């Protein structure tokens, strides 16, 4: 046998051989081929970047919150790209800073929902029985309160602050995440490799973290991403209703609510923040739909 053939056998035949790809790469390729998902990813990435660099481009004290009465209601121009508001503050600076706050609140809230949802969902799904029954009844009760109502109640009780908002929006997202994780855990709990893990002496904690959760990643990512868009909407709704971020701190929702009083004379004060929310939510939704199709092709419409 020639050396060449040995190598061929060792590496598998070169004829008709395809480079092997992992599941993650496979999903990434599918994601990359989805035009809309890529656009969504870029737009959302740019918006996040804007939020991160906000303190380096605008001065919070001077540009964002200090009233400059001589500059009131300037329509968009060279100096104030998006005009000025009722107190003469530059809308662009406020919008950039508002992005930082809106995104920080929404993303932290989603992290909270995902963390709690993963813990409760996996534990309930793994142990099952009465334990599962009690936890899921509790989640059902939580879920029967419309999420905006629940957020408002929490915000109303604990007062206006960034931390409370994160808590309020995060808690409202827990039921959906918990149900998703539990359902996935239930579907894989009885599989052989889990049994093998148990047979090798793994304790519950090890089984959950090393065997069950890695296989729940796809639905968690999908659900979590889709949750970001509702968190953004909820965050701005709360501020719009006056129970969220306290002025003068800018946030998309309360900027809209301030602009609303001057709708007749300065329509752009209402239009611009709303448009920003819409573009962001749209980008997240596109990304979420793309991720769903990429990670779980069976769910594709």
């Amino acid at each position, binding site marked *: 046998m020639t050396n060449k053939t040995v190598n061929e056998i060792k590496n598998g035949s070169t004829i008709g051989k395809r480079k092997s790809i992992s599941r993650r790469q496979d999903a990434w390729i599918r994601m990359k081929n989805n035009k809309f998902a890529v656009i969504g990813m870029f737009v959302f990435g740019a918006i996040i970047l804007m939020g991160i660099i906000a303190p380096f481009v605008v001065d919070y004290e001077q540009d964002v919150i200090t009233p400059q009465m001589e500059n009131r209601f300037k329509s968009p121009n060279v100096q104030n790209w998006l005009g000025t508001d009722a107190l003469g503050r530059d809308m662009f600076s406020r919008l950039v800073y508002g992005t930082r706050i809106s995104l920080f609140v929404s993303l932290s809230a989603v992290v909270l929902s995902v963390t709690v949802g993963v813990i409760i969902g996996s534990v309930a799904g793994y142990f099952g029985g009465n334990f599962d029954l009690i936890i899921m009844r*509790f989640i059902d009760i939580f879920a029967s*309160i*419309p*999420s*905006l109502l629940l957020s408002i109640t929490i*915000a109303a009780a604990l*007062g206006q602050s960034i931390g409370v908002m994160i808590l309020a929006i995060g808690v409202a997202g827990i039921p959906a995440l918990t149900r998703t994780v539990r359902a996935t855990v239930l579907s894989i709990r009885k599989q052989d490799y889990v049994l093998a893990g148990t047979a090798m002496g793994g304790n519950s904690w090890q089984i959950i973290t090393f065997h069950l959760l890695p296989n729940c990643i796809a639905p968690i990512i999908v659900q979590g991403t889709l949750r970001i868009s509702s968190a953004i909407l909820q965050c701005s709704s709360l501020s719009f209703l006056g129970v969220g971020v306290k002025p003068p701190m800018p946030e998309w929702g309360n900027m*809209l609510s301030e602009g609303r009083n001057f709708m007749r004379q300065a329509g752009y004060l*209402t239009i611009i923040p709303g448009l920003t929310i819409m573009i962001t939510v749209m980008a997240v939704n596109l990304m979420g739909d793309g991720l769903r199709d990429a990670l779980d092709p069976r769910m594709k419409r």
Partner: protein
Amino acid sequence: MLKYIIRRFLLLIPVIIGVAAIIFFIMSLMPEDPVRIILADSDPDPIMEETLRKELGLDKPVIIQFVDYMKGLVRGDLGLSYKTRLPVFNEYMKRIPNTLYLSFGAMAVALIVALPIGIISAVKQYSWFDNLGMTFIFLGLSVPNFWLGLLLILLFSVKLGWLPGGGIDNLGIILPAITLGTGSVALYARMTRASMLEVIRQDYIRTARAKGLKEKTVVLKHALKNSLIPIITVVASQFGHAMGGAMVTETIFAWPGIGRFMIEAVNKRDRPVVIGCVVMLCIMISIIQLFVDILYGYVDPRIRTEITKD
């Protein structure tokens, strides 16, 4: 069937108690002292303060307060508003028809738009109409409804002057209903499309076509009827959420419903009103949901046999 209905009703009780408990305890975390809110005074007469505290039962532990609250709830007594001293239950009942009117209006708008889009998109899958419809729906899903409301006011009432931008009289329902309904359009249309796509591939649809029935009859009579069940489920569950979301819409359009009532109460730290509104809304939503579930039994014989089996 009757046994099933009774059991479902009994199962509602723990849910209501649970919801009330959650809301009650969250609101009891409020840092402000209710007595001071009622007296609207930061430094009231100590004797008056004490009497009022006793009278409201605020000197008791939270658990006892909750039990008292639940006893009241059974009798339809949700306490008095801290600000107006009017019974919360009566105030709620006075406003709920307006919120229901708005929610039904929104549902009607959403269905009028969503059903045709969903049906045509399914029948002509991947056509230009399908793509356009789904894009349109995607936009509807992403638009913040308070912003949409403001834009509608800006266009139709400020600029064009065609429709009133607030209040409940005459044509006042149109703009709020569109605002609140838009969020649901996406869900309904997607559901309709998916459900229709599933049904339309089945053999009996082919048979219907083979019999020479008109396409209209096949789609509307044969396919739509059988794809309605999942649509009804979504509509029913979305209805509850619409009532929760009505808060924002009501605030924008000065709609005299529960939402505005509650937001005002939140800003005035009026605890009994907030608790009462949330608890009552949740009870109503649960009852509507139950009602729909029971209704299925009558609509769909398959579900009826499933229910009566156990």
